[in-house]
């Protein structure tokens, strides 16, 4: 056990830290709504791209730095520490690109990877449907062959960034005669067509991070199938595995910052001397540190054995639960004015409710842990 960074890792950390200090993003737009905000994040990705920092974990042949999993974690920790946003095309960089690297043809890699990295083409993820959430393989969006093309009809939901996206990672049913996992195909769908309608989905915070997609005979050339017809489930799993890998480190640091803000707020009010609040804040501190340690432990497994241990699901579960506890405690510490619409704490409180649902509900995570880590039997679903 050695919880220090190697000289190479330290050098990597210093380099990204110095670069972020020397190249801060432009001032965050005060108004102009989500469009202005997105444009700002897109501009930020361009700066990171120009500096060679858009996706350090990508192999050098695709324009990355071929950084190790530990270095990638350091990269996200430093982004969190500097309190700068993630690059705008986060789904393309973290999910779409790595999925193409595994399953894409040489032509697909050459065509799609460079504009993901530069941010010229934004990507979104068309997986979930109104009737296919945790049970993703039950999805109903259908793709039918039409000459050299596929015609796609259906509905997708929770599609973040769809209004800014050029490409959608779309999973659709191409064969309804076979078992539900086997009849799926993974497509790259051009969002720039009238057959695809994007409607913002207003969430409990009042903003619209996500969208619904209404797809009516959208056309996708056969060349945009990724990983072969009928192989969509496997390709989608590659995307989902990447979903939990990198992002955890940013979330962990954001949680730490939020807790530091809350401790400062408690200190200002003289509440650190209050036994009840002191106990609750110390509890959150221990949870935060446990998340950090479990995340690093998971990374050790990735570096040593090539795959994450059970920590991934544990970290996501503990993180989401802790963020909800933290934001709830903030209301008590700050007082009822924390619940004023438009304030940071009211936003954090409401947004945190989504944490135990998005990216795998806590209930599904517990199933995964019970079945795949502990080896407990699975209760057969009723049809």
């Amino acid at each position, binding site marked *: 056990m*050695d919880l220090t960074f190697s000289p190479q890792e330290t050098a990597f950390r210093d380099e990204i830290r110095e670069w972020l200090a020397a190249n801060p993003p432009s001032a965050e737009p005060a108004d102009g709504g989500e469009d202005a905000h997105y444009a700002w994040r897109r501009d930020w990705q361009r700066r990171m791209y120009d500096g060679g920092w858009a996706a350090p974990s990508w192999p050098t042949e695709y324009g990355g730095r071929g950084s190790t999993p530990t270095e990638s974690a350091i990269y996200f920790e430093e982004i969190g520490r500097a309190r700068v946003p993630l690059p705008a095309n986060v789904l393309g960089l973290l999910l779409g690109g790595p999925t193409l690297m595994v399953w894409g043809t040489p032509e697909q890699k050459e065509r799609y990877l460079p504009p993901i990295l530069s941010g010229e083409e934004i990507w979104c993820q068309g997986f979930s449907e109104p009737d296919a959430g945790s049970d993703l393989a039950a999805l109903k969006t259908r793709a039918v062959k039409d000459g050299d093309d596929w015609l796609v009809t259906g509905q997708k939901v929770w599609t973040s960034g769809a209004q800014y996206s050029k490409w959608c990672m779309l999973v659709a049913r191409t064969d309804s005669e076979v078992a539900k996992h086997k009849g799926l195909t993974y497509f790259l769908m051009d969002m720039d067509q009238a057959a695809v309608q994007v409607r913002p989905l207003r969430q409990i915070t009042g903003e619209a991070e996500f969208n619904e997609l209404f797809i009516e005979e959208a056309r996708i050339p056969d060349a945009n199938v990724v990983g072969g017809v009928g192989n969509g489930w496997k390709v989608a799993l590659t995307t989902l595995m990447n979903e939990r890998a990198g992002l955890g480190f940013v979330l962990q640091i954001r949680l730490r910052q939020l807790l530091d803000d809350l*401790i400062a707020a408690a200190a200002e009010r003289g509440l650190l001397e209050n036994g009840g609040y002191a106990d609750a804040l110390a*509890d959150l501190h221990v949870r935060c540190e446990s998340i950090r340690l479990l995340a690093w*432990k998971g990374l050790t497994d990735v570096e040593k054995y090539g795959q994450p241990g059970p920590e991934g699901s544990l970290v996501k*579960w503990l993180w989401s639960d802790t963020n909800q506890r933290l934001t709830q405690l903030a209301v008590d510490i700050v007082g009822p004015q924390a619940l004023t619409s438009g304030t940071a704490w009211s936003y954090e409180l409401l947004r945190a409710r989504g944490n135990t649902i998005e990216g795998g509900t806590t209930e599904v995570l517990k199933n995964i842990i*019970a079945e795949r880590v502990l080896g407990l*039997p699975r209760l057969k679903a009723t049809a």
Partner: protein
Amino acid sequence: MDFGLTDDQRDIQRTARDLLAERAKPDIVREHAEAGTVDGALWKELCELGWPGIAISEENGGQGLGRIELSILCEELGRVLAPVPFLPTVLASTLIEHSGSAEQRAAWLPRLASGEATGALGSSVDGTAGLVIGAVGADVIVLIDTDGGASLLEASAAEVTPLAAIDPTRSAARVSGSGEELPGDVAAGTDRALVAISSELVGVCGRALEMTVEYVKDRKQFGVPVGAYQAVSHRCAQMLLDTEKARSTAAYAAWTADADPERLPEAAAMAKVTASEAGREVTASAIQAHGGIGFTWEADVHWLYKRAQLDSVLLGGAGSHRASIAGILAERIRSGAAA
């Protein structure tokens, strides 16, 4: 950055697990628990292997390995609830080594390292400790007082009144008396002692989870293994989360003790918080998931619950260590440092 054990540490873990699987089988432990006896043969064997002295420096007669190695042994012995005075003895030697004088170290560490002498450690108020594990028959007892000082009592200077604690796999006694002061930094010893207790709790939790998983896979009701029900399987998932939190914080604390001592006070408190909480929750869940059989004397899960109850409150429960952490956080705010 490497959270794993070294090859040598893995060897220690494997050797310990294999040996204890053979020598500390549940029926042997039960026999000693019911008779209230120490497993003298096992203790002798562990002493011959040098276990009590694993973390004691070589000049004081130990093996000179680190706190991680000690934690590995604590965890393995905790898993099987070995009825030997290992933990009390290493807690005493830890305080003497890190908080004692050169004379105290020279007088006691070689004997505690070889197992020729046994020790115990307790918390006292005005010279009396209400319950000290392993104190019966101990050659030396260290008492940490609520005022922050610590004293060393030779057996002859200590009034030891045996108690029947709920965990009979180890002796317990009320101890009073005044001894010689440990002149060094008492916190340096206490923090390391907290880590050793936490590691034992991790072992207890790990075993409780394993027994539970085995049981709920096997036990059928309504025609299916009860572990297929999410009410049961999600409880098991929670047991794993609690155990892994404790495991990672205890490992971190053991590492800081040798490699980053400035971080030790915070890390040791975190380890004791997570391990105390996990110890209680995980072993209580083990009883619950075993159903009626879990409440019987015949099922072995109650020994784990009882050990966890004792360990959780030794040198302060989770609440008192959260209070220490809150103090550290407040101090950081005052000094303007980031957490």
